[in-house]
């Protein structure tokens, strides 16, 4: 919904939220349901109602629990039957500097006294986080702390022993340290948010006295959006590709008219410098697993000339797809999506021409467009929009671009073979299939949350759940890594089976689309059967739950040789396989026993 896309009109959202909610709930979208507990240190009602709108718009249908006013500590530490039975999937702790109860009071306090205050304050929050972890094993989002608007002593307040702002900054370091050392703990950076909006706008003492809102009600949509971005990122709903125009987007000028020597990029001019900064900024996204692509109305030859400019920071190799032709841009984006096996909704498109943005928006509403009015504006939009909000970073993320490039090389090799099996053999593939070893927990969790197409049940798991499954004796958990002569694809497939006597219910079967048609699913099935047999299991039960995106695997179990037991009207199906006489199916991938990493 356009009204809920960054940059949004906060006042409009606050005013129209009932109508917007009604519209979202009746738009027919399929959404994942999540239970979110909001533990507040101040009023949270409107924060929750606006958060609901943004989450609905991100494809998540939330149910909320809200603590009684300022009962975040009691709920977390002493528990609460209502919260226990709610059993949250995620917890948001809405505390602010208003909840810092141990701040120094007088400039006569010694450094020791302030230090003990700080420790006391840290202990309060530590208790909250540790109790929640013990009780719920679910992701926790914690606000850090905003700076005060009022400073009795001016700049002194920011650095002196007794300063309030100095105390807050030390608490913020503590919160970040905790986040870095505790999985599933995320910081909602209201220190940044209040700064970027301005402390004079953020704070409104009247709203505190009247309603006990710890910030101005005007900024509630900004706050709610920031939380929503973290939540949707945890559930794998980030964008994945930045698709870029070239002329006046990656460099100044028009390469077709101005030639390689005429475009502005590099240190010589102010415009050239701005585009250099933009290119560096974009290139940095690659290390976070974001893919870059080109979509430009140009001759391909000119495109390459521009990207090979001696001052260009981005080179042709940095892009996983380059579409430079005279076709409509929406067609090019759709083709790139197809080639990369990605959904249209994972694309962000940046163009300086508002008409191109409008056409793409009109033809492909799922694509997010960013108008390139200036380098400054585009960098701001990318920074604030949360399209690429990071909540976990796996080694795979940092190499994603290379993996896609290797895929392109595989595709060109495929053309040389007439027989597909010969091609597969030529890839010299090796699979390593293991349980959920500690080093894989993060990647496995990430895959369960972002795989949509090759995913039989589309069950989403939190990191804590995957952790628990990894040591469960009632489950068989497999994750498979696939490498070949062009490179390592990393962990690409996850299977979870629940043991019920001599039967195994396959609760999850997914695979990354980057290894489609490589027979990796057969290697996984072989291993699953092998492990099942070793546990005296004789039958496998497979389930297919139809979604808008997973049609490609509707017949997977049938292809594996399972028997169809039941097919519902909504497209869901149940399958069965007796494995007593199972014959190994994979013939093209070598399998290797995993060397356990200690």
């Amino acid at each position, binding site marked *: 919904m356009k009204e809920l896309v960054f940059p949004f009109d906060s*006042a409009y959202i*606050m*005013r*129209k939220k009932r*109508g917007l909610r009604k519209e979202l709930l009746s738009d027919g979208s399929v959404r994942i349901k999540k239970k979110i507990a909001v533990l507040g240190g101040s009023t949270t*009602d*409107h924060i929750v109602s606006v958060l609901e709108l943004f989450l609905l718009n991100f494809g998540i249908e939330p149910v909320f629990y809200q603590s009684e006013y300022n009962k975040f500590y009691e709920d977390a530490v002493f528990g609460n039957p209502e919260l226990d039975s709610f059993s949250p999937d995620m917890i948001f702790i809405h505390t602010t500097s208003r909840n810092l109860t141990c701040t120094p009071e007088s400039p006569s306090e010694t450094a020791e006294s302030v230090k003990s205050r700080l420790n006391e304050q840290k202990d309060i929050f530590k208790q909250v986080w540790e109790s929640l972890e013990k009780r719920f094993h679910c992701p926790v989002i914690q606000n850090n702390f905003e700076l005060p608007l009022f400073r009795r002593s001016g700049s002194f307040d920011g650095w002196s022993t007794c300063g309030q702002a100095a105390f807050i900054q030390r608490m913020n370091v503590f919160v970040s340290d905790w986040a870095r050392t505790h999985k599933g703990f995320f910081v909602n950076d209201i220190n940044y948010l209040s700064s970027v909006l301005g402390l004079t706008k953020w704070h409104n003492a*009247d709203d505190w006295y*009247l309603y006990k809102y710890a910030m101005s*009600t005007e900024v509630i949509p900004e706050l709610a959006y920031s939380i929503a971005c973290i939540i949707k990122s945890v559930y794998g709903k980030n964008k994945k590709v930045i698709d870029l125009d070239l002329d006046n987007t990656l460099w100044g000028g028009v390469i077709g008219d101005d030639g390689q020597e005429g475009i502005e990029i590099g240190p010589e001019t102010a415009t050239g410098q701005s585009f250099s900064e933009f290119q560096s900024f974009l290139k940095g996204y690659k290390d976070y697993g974001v893919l870059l692509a080109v979509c430009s109305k140009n001759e391909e030859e000119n495109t390459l000339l521009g990207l090979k400019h001696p001052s260009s920071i981005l080179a042709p190799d940095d892009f996983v797809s380059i579409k430079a032709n005279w076709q409509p841009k929406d067609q090019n984006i759709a083709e790139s999506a197809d080639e990369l096996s990605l959904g249209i909704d994972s694309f962000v498109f940046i163009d300086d021409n508002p008409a191109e943005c409008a056409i793409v928006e009109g033809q492909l509403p799922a694509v997010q467009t960013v108008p390139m009015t200036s380098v400054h504006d585009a960098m701001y939009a990318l920074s604030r929009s949360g399209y690429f909000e990071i909540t976990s970073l796996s080694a795979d993320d940092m190499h994603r671009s290379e993996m896609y490039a290797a895929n392109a090389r595989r595709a060109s090799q495929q053309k040389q073979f007439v027989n597909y099996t010969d091609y597969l053999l030529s890839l010299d593939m090796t699979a390593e299939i293991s349980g959920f070893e500690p080093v894989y927990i993060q990647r496995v969790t990430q895959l369960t949350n972002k795989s949509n197409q090759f995913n039989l049940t589309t069950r989403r798991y939190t990191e804590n759940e995957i952790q628990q499954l990894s040591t469960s004796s009632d489950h068989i958990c497999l994750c498979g890594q696939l490498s070949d002569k062009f490179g390592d694809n990393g962990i690409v497939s996850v299977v979870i089976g629940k043991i019920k006597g001599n039967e195994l219910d396959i609760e999850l079967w997914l695979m990354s689309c980057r290894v489609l048609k490589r027979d990796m699913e057969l290697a996984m099935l072989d291993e699953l059967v092998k492990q099942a047999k070793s546990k005296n299991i004789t039958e496998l039960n497979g389930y297919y739950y139809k979604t808008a995106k997973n049609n490609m695997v509707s017949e997977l179990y049938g292809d594996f040789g399972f028997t169809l037991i039941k097919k519902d009207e909504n497209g869901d199906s149940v399958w069965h396989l007796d494995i007593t006489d199972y014959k190994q199916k994979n013939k093209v991938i070598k399998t290797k026993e995993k060397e356990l990493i200690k």
Partner: protein
Amino acid sequence: MNTNEIIPRLNEVFRDVFGDSSISVTASTTADDIEDWDSIEHINLIGAVESEFGMRFKMREVSGMKNVGEMINIIAERGK
């Protein structure tokens, strides 16, 4: 600004905030007349009226308004 200019704009705000296009406010309308007008929606209403008319209510006004008429009087004085 006079009451005749204020009422239609104010009415739109009420309709948006309470999500009810049948609302028609008058000077004598009170919270009892609109089903969803509770203390939480009051916060939203005040914010929406403030941004519609480019003004701020004082704290005492927010908690002391008895009916829409009093709201209109304040808007007439300071609204844009």
